């Protein structure tokens, strides 16, 4: 049996070639234009918070930046992944690739890693932009303080501003934003292997995203028991079992206000995210390996 015909054959070189190609394809689709939108949002909110924010301008700026990073990375992953398989089928690239000694397992992995590369680069660029705007706002705040405070009180106030602006804790928070986007992309890939149209994949992914954020409430209600009707209990249990708890990855809200993220907790969440990605990818592979093309 040819090595590539084995559904689980693995060649890092072939996977990398596919991932690289997918990444280049996505870049050529000019997906980075979304960064302009992100920049407008961040710079706009930076100006906006100066005018309208109520005593808390840096906090608002951080929340807007991290929230925007979260939604843009998710949307980018969703839209890129939902189109991967339908596009390759439509322009026949998929058949050309699979006719070569490339297994479906390698093909799916290559495609997904391509999206992951794109997400990683996008989050990195967004983080740099965000840090830049935050640094400018920090300098403006310090300059404002220097005008209004005496030399005696200035160092303490400046230290307070600095501590409220950049926290090393933001880094693991951003990594978890990236991980959530990667998880959502893998889920979208799973849906895309089941679906026949990308519109269906996108819509279902959005619903899964929304359900994933309330899954925790359903799970806790299910585990607590309570007096719900049997039908409702079945629904809640189904929701808790089938969907991932995306709320577990939303730790930046608390990090932004100064809550320290313990290293162990970070690795636990990251490991859990990795496990989700692995399981959903293997399910996607299971579906794709037997799919009529």
């Amino acid at each position, binding site marked *: 049996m040819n090595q590539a015909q084995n559904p689980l054959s693995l060649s890092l070189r072939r996977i990398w070639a596919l991932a690289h190609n997918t990444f280049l394809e996505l870049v050529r689709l000019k997906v980075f234009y979304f960064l302009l939108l992100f920049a407008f949002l961040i710079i706009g909110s930076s100006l906006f918070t100066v005018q309208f924010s*109520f005593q808390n301008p840096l906090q608002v700026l951080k929340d807007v930046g991290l929230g925007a990073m979260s939604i843009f990375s998710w949307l980018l992953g969703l839209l890129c992944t939902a189109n991967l398989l339908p596009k390759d089928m439509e322009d026949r690239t998929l058949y050309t690739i699979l006719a070569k000694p490339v297994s479906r397992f390698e093909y799916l992995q290559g495609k997904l890693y391509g999206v992951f590369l794109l997400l990683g680069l996008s989050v990195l660029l967004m983080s740099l932009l965000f840090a830049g705007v935050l640094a400018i706002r920090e300098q403006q705040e310090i300059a404002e303080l220097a005008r209004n405070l005496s030399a005696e009180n200035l160092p303490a106030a400046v230290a307070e501003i600095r501590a409220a602006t950049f926290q090393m804790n933001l880094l693991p928070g951003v990594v978890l934003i990236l991980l959530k986007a990667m998880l959502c992309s893998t889920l979208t890939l799973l849906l895309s292997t089941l679906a026949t149209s990308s519109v269906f994949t996108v819509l279902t992914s959005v619903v899964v995203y929304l359900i994933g954020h309330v899954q925790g409430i359903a799970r*806790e209600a299910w585990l607590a028991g309570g007096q719900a009707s049997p039908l409702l209990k079945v629904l809640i249990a189904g929701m808790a079992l089938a969907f991932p708890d995306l*709320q577990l990855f939303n730790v930046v809200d*608390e990090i932004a206000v100064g809550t320290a*993220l313990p290293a162990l907790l970070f690795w636990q969440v990251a490991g859990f995210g990795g496990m989700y990605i692995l399981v959903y990818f293997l399910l996607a592979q299971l579906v794709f390996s037997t799919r009529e093309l």
Partner: protein
Amino acid sequence: MRKALCILGLLAGFGCLKTAAEHYLLTVQRSAGFQLATLSGQTRTQLGQTGFVAALSGFRALMADLLWIRAGSAFDRTEWPRMQMLLHAATQLQPRAVVFWEMAHFHMAYDASHSMRLNVRQQPAAALRRVAELEYVQIGEDFLKAGLVFNPESATLWQRLGELYSRRRDDPARASAAYAEAARKPGALGFLRRMAAYELAKVPGKDREAYEQLRSLYLEGEPQRLPNLVRLLRQLEEKLAVPEAERVYTTPSAPSGTPASR
């Protein structure tokens, strides 16, 4: 069909394993101060349908900021009840933001309550104005206490509670306890221990305790020997009839620069 059933079965199997892990992770996160927000019916009313969905979809902090900005508009128009509701919703969405609790308490216990006291046009009866004033002081206190449930290690919130008891409640015993608690928290400011002692000195029957605290602060050295502290110490030594030899400010070996040596 078989494939779909197989996938559903695998998902359910994985679901059983992951549910326990998710529950464990949530518990760990909550104990570390994460995922403490609650989305009550009142919060939903303040956010509206879209905002509520956004808050549920991972944009909780953004929604809290939005409510905070709206509370700012309510403040500009002195719409205190509306401001209170908006601040409540904002603090529920972002309970780990100490500044939200701090400012919410301040606007209620000081701004709104003061406004009630002076609101002669709407309420000519002084007694009723006083009742309204105290109601807002209570709301401010409730904000601080709720904030401390979520941020028990916040020196700022304990300090504000001490200030509220001291300035708005005229309750030096509770003020002293709150200042003392604030002083024990990480990042506490240096004057908090002095404030705890000053307030304790106002409590009837606590003279000896207050004296001991002031004395130990005085003996720490020059940075603590501020005019207020020395004055109170002297008064208490007189009041408690402390023997001359034990009085710190008259001790011959007292460091130079103290009132006694001066």
